[in-house]
């Protein structure tokens, strides 16, 4: 009885160990730099989709473990300083469409969502890199609610596995986010719809 009880406990402990060992959790945390870009003379209302703020990606990789990757706080940490540098004035709005008082103070509304997140952790030790792909969806609307641009912004990051795989996923996610941020801040003005709208807006003014 004593032996069987001991064996049962050992079995349960081993099972718990295996299950715990098969789960990987990464909370992406980082400070993101303010970009060196010229600010556009616009007051922009910023709307962040609720899913963006609480984004957690969960996936069971074949021949690997179950991963949960939390990007919620990092999304805002990356996008907020980005938009503050890109526009002369920003105002976070809680709803879409914004309240009448918010709408009166802005030239446009920019909503941000994380449309896609994928990652790959190599199953064999010969592969050295973890890769992360993500895609933000930005929609710029005029104060009347008309969509001016629906823009998918990709980001790709890879990181060498030189310690734990979790640490490499963390670094690759940050590289991918920085890449997406670089695209947003450097290519926003070159979007034809944005240029047309700005031309129209400032020629009217």
């Amino acid at each position, binding site marked *: 009885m004593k032996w069987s009880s001991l064996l049962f406990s050992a079995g349960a402990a081993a099972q718990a160990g295996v299950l715990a060992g098969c789960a990987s959790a990464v909370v992406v945390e980082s400070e*993101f730099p*303010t970009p060196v870009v010229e600010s556009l003379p616009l007051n922009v209302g910023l709307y962040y989709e609720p899913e963006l703020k609480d984004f957690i990606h969960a996936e069971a990789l074949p021949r690997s473990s179950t991963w949960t990757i939390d990007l919620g706080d990092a999304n805002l940490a990356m996008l907020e300083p980005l938009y503050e540098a890109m526009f002369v004035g920003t105002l976070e709005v809680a709803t879409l469409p914004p309240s009448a008082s918010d709408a009166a103070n802005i030239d446009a509304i920019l909503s941000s969502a994380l449309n896609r997140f994928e990652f790959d952790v190599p199953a064999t030790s010969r592969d050295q890199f973890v890769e992360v792909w993500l895609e933000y969806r930005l929609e710029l609307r005029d104060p009347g609610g008309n969509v001016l641009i629906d823009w998918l912004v990709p980001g790709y990051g890879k990181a060498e596995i030189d310690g734990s795989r979790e640490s490499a996923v963390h670094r690759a996610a940050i590289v991918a986010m920085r890449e997406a941020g670089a695209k947003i801040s*450097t290519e926003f003005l070159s979007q034809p719809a944005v240029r047309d709208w700005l031309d129209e807006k400032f020629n009217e003014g």
Partner: protein
Amino acid sequence: MRLSWSGSLLGLSAAAVLAGCSTTSRLEPYKQTDAVLEDGEGVVILARRHHATHEAEQEFVDCISDALASSKQEIVVHDSDEFQDMLYPWFEPSTAPLNVADLSELLDRPGVAERVSATGVRFVVWLDGSTDRVASGGSITCAAGIGGAGCMGLAWWEDDARYDASVWDIDQLNESGTIHADVRGRSVMPAVVVPLPFISRPQAKACRGLGEQLETFLTTPSGYGAGIGDVG
């Protein structure tokens, strides 16, 4: 019997070391200007990260940075992460300048030249390359029994550390030159009861060689490098 085992072990190890564990290296520096670091000027080491298949390892970038910072010339090396943050988003993998013309265009953008100037960086050293396993072979078999455990066999592998360092002069807006390093090392591991690894470290050797060359490159105005005579 014990003498026989240890004799075999020593003999096999010696043979393996003589036949296998070796390093060959080649360094090709080419400097095409007389520019050197002046007082108050520094250098930043950055890895090229836009390739899909490879990128210079962070530990190699750190190794070169440390080698220059601790050199006899006490070269001022700016932290690469801090430099990229200060110049964000212009030195990310997809936005980093690929040639000096791109750099010149970048410095014309509002605020960029001021930020670069604030760092004190005169030269940007771009590291491109990686260390890869190019060959391996042999096998080691291990077994355990009531009387004990042991391994038998021979394994070997060959790593190639191949890097290019391109030096850009931010002040003169030109490419000062390049240094190519190619270090290949073969490691062997004979096993007679106990595996004995004889490891060759080509990446560390490439770092040492490239670091020394870069130190000379950045502080010696003339008479340096294979190509210096080609430039007026």
